[in-house]
């Protein structure tokens, strides 16, 4: 049974709960509700405590009214409270005085300051009220309650004057020292505010922020801080009170109209609508002139450039924007860049002319001098632009320029050679020479030889390796090995461990020895071979075999059979194969214009025959290493192919690739195909390379399969990030559509079917056919286009490829139908072959007089 406990917890008194809720509401700023609740509590149980609670709620409400600037309402309410609750006297009086002070009636607030006996506490309280409430500096400056020389009046006078000044004109910092207002004065926050406003107008935003931070939060002056910060930072104005938002709008210009006009003009350019563009230009220029005149010239520059690119008649565009833009360096740069951005090489010569004009303007305007690195970079930029222009277009531009003035210097910007030359003369930088050399090496318009440029480069930058390597290779190509070796000496002095330098020494020495043997100068060759023997590089791989081969040839030229036999024996020992020894010495002898042969396929044992593919691959590797082209005779390759086909040889991926390459070089695609099949069987490692070799080995009529193999190789190389292989594949000729993209499932199918296709294709057995993967080529003739529902011009000529119209031609009278059909067939073939009617008639033996040679049109 429920039993009332002996001691129930004492409930909190109603007054305490009510008071706490009222105080909470006041703290939350809900003054009106707090006042109603306090009144109810007081009405329910009136006591001094509840009266004090009501007075506090009233005081909070009056303060809120004051904060909202409702001074009349605040005063009326304080009068009412004073009358109804006499006990509230002091606190309400203070609020009333605050209200008066805000209205500029400062007498009541300030009069006590004239009393010499005023307590420190009261003085402090008044001064705090001044700092918190006084917003009318003029009223304070003229307040009769204080003497004319009172610091508050003199300070307020100075502040008022300064406030009017900073809000009306630019005022320098030193004019805002305001010594009349001390640091401890209740008006000190005003001094900080005025300085902040001064900084804001002088665009010293950082200093403005610092001054605002020094304004105490509760002070009267602090009420301007949010607006000033919004203006300085360009932040949001949404949270500002109405008056502050009005101030911000008034001070900072609104550009909504201009923004809308520019957006519309952007849309018009995107739509490529001339009428709309011209209207947009007119509106944007008018808005800009009105609301942002400082931007007008820049905007006109942009609009002019965009109008030119959009092919708008300048006779219409320029009047719409109110005349030409200022043609300064900025404008020319913008124009040139816009022409570049068209990515149309036809515009590039014009872009170069504009860049040349930019250079002149930039020099005049003091951007840079005409002989500094900036000018050099500009010349290089123009030259690089001209590289993209097709040669015939560039020559046409140069020819038309020459018609005006026959001096290339006047139109230097149309001549890449002059541009590179100027850039390198001004700023002899490796990058500039490199670009010039690259251009001269590949361009037929180059007047200076690449060697001359490389020599200039070497003279300007003696520590650069690139020009020396170029000169060395060039000398090597001309077979000036002495000169090449002399250049190599210089290159070695700069960077002896550079891979190109390291490889070059042995290659050049061997080439020199071969030439000496070719010239039948065995003594000289012997000396060279002795030097080669001393090189550390010669000990790597099979290089000593080539040295032995050259020694053998040297001995043979001397006629020393014994020495020759010794050399061949050494060679065979080094390569561990009579066949390989034969290839090396026969190849070296052939390079020296000498006949030398050790053995033929018939001389080989069964074991050596089995090892023949490996021997060929080994010699191929040696040849690649020392820069010698090795192509064995067809007979040897046929034996090797037989061995490859009939025996299960264990050849590495590298050996198979070398075999495939040498077979392609020897125009023996069947063997290359066989090597690729063996390579594909090895697995994933070099699959892309073998697919590429497979593509090269396929007969031309299998162009579709060939394209698919190339596409698959590219796709696999892309996955392996093998850019060299991708470049190699892209350089191969393709047929048909030339489409080299492949879907993942198609790739898998190509890989699977090519791995399975081990037999060289024939007409009877072509192997995998991928016709479903090749994109369908749509016929472009009018009839087919009409059938597909595509638009066809009625005046369009019939497609010459479609010769069916010949079948419907009326037959000439008296010609038997069989003869007529044969004739029509012959005419069709003739058209497809591209023969002229005369040639057809000549071929049919019905032509008239034969034309003389050289007279045929």
């Amino acid at each position: 049974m429920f039993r009332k406990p002996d001691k129930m917890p004492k409930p909190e008194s109603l007054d305490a709960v009510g008071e706490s809720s009222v105080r909470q509401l006041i703290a939350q700023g809900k003054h009106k509700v707090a006042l109603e609740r306090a009144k109810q509590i007081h009405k329910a149980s009136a006591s001094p405590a509840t009266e004090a609670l009501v007075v506090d709620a009233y005081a909070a409400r009056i303060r809120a009214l004051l904060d909202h600037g409702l001074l009349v309402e605040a005063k009326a309410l304080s009068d009412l409270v004073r009358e109804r609750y006499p006990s509230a006297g002091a606190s309400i009086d203070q609020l009333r005085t605050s209200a008066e002070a805000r209205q500029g009636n400062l007498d009541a607030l300030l009069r006590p300051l004239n009393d010499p006996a005023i307590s420190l506490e009261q003085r402090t309280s008044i001064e705090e009220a001044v700092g918190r409430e006084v917003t009318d500096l003029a009223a304070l400056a003229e307040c009769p309650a204080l003497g004319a020389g009172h610091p508050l009046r003199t300070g307020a006078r100075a502040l008022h004057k300064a406030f009017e000044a900073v809000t009306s004109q630019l005022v320098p910092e030193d004019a805002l020292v305001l010594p009349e207002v001390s640091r401890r004065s209740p008006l000190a926050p005003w001094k900080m505010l005025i300085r902040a406003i001064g900084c804001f107008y002088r665009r010293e935003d950082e200093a403005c922020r610092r001054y605002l931070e020094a304004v105490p939060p509760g002070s009267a002056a602090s009420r301007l801080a949010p607006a000033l910060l919004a203006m300085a930072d360009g932040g949001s104005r949404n949270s500002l009170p109405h008056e502050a938002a009005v101030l911000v709008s008034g001070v900072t210009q609104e550009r909504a109209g201009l923004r809308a006009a520019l957006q519309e003009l952007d849309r018009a350019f995107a739509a490529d609508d001339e009428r709309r563009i011209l209207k947009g230009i007119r509106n944007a220029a008018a808005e800009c002139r009105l609301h942002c005149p400082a931007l007008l010239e820049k905007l006109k520059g942009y609009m002019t450039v965009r109008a030119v690119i959009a092919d708008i008649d300048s006779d219409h565009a320029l009047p719409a924007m109110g005349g030409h833009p200022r043609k300064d360096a900025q404008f020319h740069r913008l124009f040139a860049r816009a022409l570049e951005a068209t990515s149309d090489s036809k515009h590039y010569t014009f872009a170069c002319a504009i860049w040349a004009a930019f250079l002149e303007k930039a020099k005049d305007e003091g951007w840079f001098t005409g002989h500094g690195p900036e000018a050099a970079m500009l010349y290089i930029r123009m030259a690089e632009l001209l590289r993209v222009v097709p040669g015939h277009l560039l020559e046409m531009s140069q020819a038309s320029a020459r018609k005006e003035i026959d001096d290339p210097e006047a139109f230097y910007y149309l001549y890449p050679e002059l541009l590179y030359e100027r850039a390198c003369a001004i700023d002899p930088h490796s990058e500039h020479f490199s670009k010039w050399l690259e251009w001269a090496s590949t361009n037929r318009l180059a007047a200076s030889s690449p060697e001359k440029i490389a020599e200039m480069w070497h003279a300007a930058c003696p520590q650069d390796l690139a020009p020396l390597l170029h000169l060395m290779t060039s000398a090597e190509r001309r077979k000036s090995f002495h000169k090449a070796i002399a250049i190599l000496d210089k290159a070695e002095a700069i960077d002896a461990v550079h891979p190109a330098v390291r490889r070059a020494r042995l290659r050049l020495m061997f080439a020199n020895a071969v030439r000496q043997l070719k010239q039948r100068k065995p003594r000289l060759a012997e000396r060279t071979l002795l030097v080669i023997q001393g090189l550390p590089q010669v000990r790597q791989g099979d290089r000593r075999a080539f040295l032995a081969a050259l020694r053998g040839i040297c001995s043979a030229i001397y006629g020393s059979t014994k020495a020759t036999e010794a050399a061949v024996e050494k060679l065979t020992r080094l390569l561990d194969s009579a066949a390989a020894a034969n290839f090396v010495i026969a190849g070296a002898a052939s390079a020296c214009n000498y006949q030398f042969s050790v053995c033929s396929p018939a001389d080989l044992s069964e074991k050596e025959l089995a090892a023949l593919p490996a021997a060929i691959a080994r010699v191929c590797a040696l040849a690649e290493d020392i820069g010698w082209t090795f192509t064995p005779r067809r007979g040897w390759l046929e034996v090797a192919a037989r061995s490859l086909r009939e025996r299960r040889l264990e050849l590495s991926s590298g050996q198979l690739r070398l075999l495939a390459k040498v077979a392609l070089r020897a125009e023996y695609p069947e063997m290359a195909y066989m090597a690729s099949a063996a390579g594909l069987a090895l697995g994933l490692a070099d699959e892309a390379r073998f697919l590429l070799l497979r593509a090269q080995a396929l007969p031309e009529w299998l162009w579709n399969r060939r394209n698919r193999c190339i596409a698959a190789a590219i796709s696999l190389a892309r996955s392996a990030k093998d850019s060299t292989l991708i470049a190699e594949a892209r350089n191969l000729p393709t047929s048909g559509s030339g489409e080299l993209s492949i879907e993942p499932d198609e790739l898998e199918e190509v890989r699977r079917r090519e791995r399975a296709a081990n037999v060289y294709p024939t007409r009877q057995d072509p192997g995998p056919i991928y016709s479903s993967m090749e994109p369908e080529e749509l016929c472009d003739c009018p009839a087919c286009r009409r059938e597909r529902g595509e638009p066809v011009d009625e005046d369009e000529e019939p497609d010459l490829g479609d010769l069916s119209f010949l079948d419907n031609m009326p037959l000439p009278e008296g010609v038997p139908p069989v003869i007529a059909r044969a004739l029509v067939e012959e005419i069709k073939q003739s058209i497809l072959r591209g023969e002229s009617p005369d040639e057809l008639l000549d071929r049919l033996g019905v032509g008239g007089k034969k034309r003389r040679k050289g007279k045929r049109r």
Partner: protein
Amino acid sequence: MNPWEALGIPEDASEEQIRAAYLGKVKEFPPERAPEEFEKVRDAYDSLRDPRRRGRLVLLGPDPTTPLVSLLDGLPGERKFVGPKPWLKVLNGR
């Protein structure tokens, strides 16, 4: 960021002007007090003091195909003098 803007100078500023602007900005943003701003200023100065880098930036210039409305971005707002009255209205709350 545009290095000329970072240093508060025009694009045709001479080397002396670039250096003077840099020193001014270093005083405004000393590395020990404003390391991030100093970093930006330093980067801008490094871009402009090397003539080749400066040349590359000069040739790069603004993008001519940029939307025209973007010309308003970063444009310093006008600061009109409106006299004391609108300011006082904010102070008086009316």
